[in-house]
């Protein structure tokens, strides 16, 4: 495998890792605050559908993004009301919202556009275009790093760079701000937060809202940047892969980056069976390659990556004790 091919795979790794990374950071906010969210998948899906539809109708990718974030927030609000206000079972609420998303997206898209549950193909300003980073062509001749900069780092939509910037931003918010301290505390021991005179409910809703926004961006990216429009079940389990990556990352932002890049790399490999065959000298069927990220997910969830300690109050509705 030559260097150019390798860079091409890394380039597509970054593209494919972006929705996983956004969803993984989304889950990180929610779970660090003690609210399990199995509904990342559903939120991405509704965001993808609404952003695809709005981008097509308005011709603006940005309006599509706004619509995606808004619908995802709506889903997050329902989860918040069920899990925080009414202290319902967080897994059940998440699963129910996923089912609702799966059915509603196809139903609405079919009713609106009559194209078999798809939204019409997007083009031009209705899609996020590729940005060329400064000096990309100028630096290309620099050995090793030049092509890496031009091929891998440059030439993505703005949402890819946003996702990457969210990693240090998340770290800073969690570890260096008052909001982050309270958010982490509410996921570890909500009673400590409550007796300190801070509302547990408000903190958890804030976290769930951030989850909604990030899932919205992830879904909009799927429909308006990675692909050109919404397709039925287009998230294909990425919300669950993001949850596995979150465990892999031990609920840390930088870990989330590396974990989702790994999953993205496996997804990228599935697009280049020729390269895999050339490197391994084994003719691996494409479906087997496509299954790799999911197999990795199962392995992660089965605990083959060592012991990961989740936030202590995760999944527990907070009930004020006597």
């Amino acid at each position, binding site marked *: 495998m030559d260097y150019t091919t390798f860079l091409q795979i890394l380039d597509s790794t970054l593209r494919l890792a972006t929705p996983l990374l956004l969803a993984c950071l989304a889950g990180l906010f929610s779970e660090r605050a003690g609210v399990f969210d199995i509904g990342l998948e559903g939120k991405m899906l509704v965001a993808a559908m609404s952003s695809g539809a709005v981008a097509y109708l308005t011709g603006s990718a940005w309006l599509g993004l706004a619509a995606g974030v808004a619908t995802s927030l709506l889903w997050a609000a329902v989860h918040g009301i069920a899990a925080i206000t009414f202290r319902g079972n967080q897994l059940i609420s998440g699963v129910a919202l996923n089912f609702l998303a799966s059915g509603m997206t196809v139903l609405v898209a079919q009713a609106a556009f009559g194209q078999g549950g798809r939204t019409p193909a997007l083009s031009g300003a209705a899609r996020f275009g590729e940005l060329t980073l400064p000096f990309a062509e100028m630096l290309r001749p620099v050995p090793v790093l030049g092509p890496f900069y031009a091929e891998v780092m440059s030439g993505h939509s703005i949402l890819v760079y946003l996702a990457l910037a969210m990693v240090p931003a998340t770290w800073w918010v969690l570890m260096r*701000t*008052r909001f982050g301290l309270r958010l*982490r505390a509410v996921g570890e*021991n909500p*009673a400590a937060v409550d*007796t300190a005179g801070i509302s547990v409910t408000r903190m958890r809703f804030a976290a769930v809202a951030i989850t909604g926004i990030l899932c919205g961006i992830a879904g909009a990216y799927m429909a308006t940047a990675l692909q050109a429009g919404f397709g039925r079940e287009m998230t294909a389990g990425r919300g669950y892969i993001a949850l596995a990556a979150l465990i892999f990352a031990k609920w840390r932002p930088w870990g989330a980056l590396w974990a989702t890049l790994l999953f993205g790399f496996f997804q990228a490999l599935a697009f280049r069976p020729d390269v895999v065959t050339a490197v391994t000298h084994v003719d691996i069927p494409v479906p087997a390659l496509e299954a790799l990220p999911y197999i990795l997910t199962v392995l992660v969830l089965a605990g083959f990556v060592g012991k990961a300690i989740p936030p202590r109050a995760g999944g527990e509705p907070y009930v004020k004790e006597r």
Partner: protein
Amino acid sequence: MAGPVSSAPAIELRGISKRFGTVQANRDICVTVPRGTIHGIIGENGAGKSTLMSILYGFYRADEGEILIGGRETHIPDSQAAIRAGIGMVFQHFKLVQNFTVLENIVLGAEDGPRLSTSLSKARRILIDLSRDYGLEVDPDALIEDLSVGHQQRVEILKALYRQAEILILDEPTGVLTPPEADHLFRILRGLRDQGKTVILITHKLREIMAITDNVSVMRRGEMVGTVATANTTPADLAERMVGRKVLLRVDKAPATPGETILEIRDLRMTEDGIERLKGINLTLRRGEIMGLAGVAGNGQSELLAILGGIARGTGSIRMKGRELDLTGREDGQDRRAQGIAHVPEDRQHLGVIMDFAAWENVAFGYHHDAAYRRGVFSDNAALRADTNAKMERFDVRPPNPDLAIKHFSGGNQQKIIVAREMERVPDLLLIGQPTRGVDIGAIEFIHKQIVALRDRGAAVLLVSVELDEVMSLSDRVAVMFDGHIMGTRDAATTNERELGLMMAGVTETA
């Protein structure tokens, strides 16, 4: 607190009442706590102490009554308001975030501005001053989970002081401490008082009230029985006020007449989650004696009881009446009972009973195969009900209603039902863990009498309790556990609290 009148009492409660459904938790409570004193509030479980303090800390709102802080009427709708009024609370179960540092726990909720670094550096400076002023040394950068319970409690006190609390409420603060740690806490509290702070100590331990408080208020069944200067009262007098009748504080028992050896434990070990919980236990029990296992909770007592009771595995050897017991998990609690071992578990509500089941069903548990409770393959519910009725009468269980779900009985009556179930078969060995946890004084007296009576009928009793007073007064011999070892065994009549306290802290005589 802004500019209080210096002569005004720190707290004055006037006619506080609080009702939960049909339960009157507090009725017309009036109490005055002078500034710069340590004020004890004593009462049995359910007397309304915690409800009263929760009202003061803004967890509940009183139905009626007024709260005066520093002489002015204060409205306390939530904890934030209580903190603003200068009230700090140290809960029985600490409200700390385990994987945060001491500093992070202290600033949580009291940060200065949205950026953490400024809050943390300011807190670090203040913390150093507070530590020096009150003798509350603690490493600001240590993680809470790495600190001993005593140090965690200091963090809770520091949290309150950091919020400029003038009034500190401590709810059962010594329940989790070794005697030396409790002594240290008392020194800290005296220091706080001498610097003008007001301390309210909620406890059910008469000894602590006598040792440290200036005044004491006694509560009974939601009412304030009275407030007296501690110097003018005695433990017996306080106990009588708490219960409403004369109580025998000492356990009345004849000297033990130990018989043959019945239980021999040799080199018993147990590892759980990769941690060695029992590190070679050797212990011998004879008929007709009560062996008390003293120690701070979590030093292996629970594991030892669980293995003896057949609900946990271990390695080593246990001989009961000369016969080797199985430790591999092949024999269960049922088999242990068949060998004459009865077990009153420490965690009554999880292992002792099923809370939603009726009393008579709970009386059957573990003995449901008994011929007396059976008619062929069916259980004889009428016989069970009759037997439960009889037990309730003998053990003075109230209300004497076999059909009532266990959760509707008070802690003391739940325990009486379990003790009746396990004792009435006259076992050769009774394992009894925390027999009086959450049990009122009247029932404690009764349960202690039953344990002594069982001993006098020739049974051996292994008593595990974190209440050192209980172990010392009830046992004939005392073994102290620390970190999975037996530190030593002493004659209960000749040892003292200081000696046992040092052993509980892991200090050996030779060291």
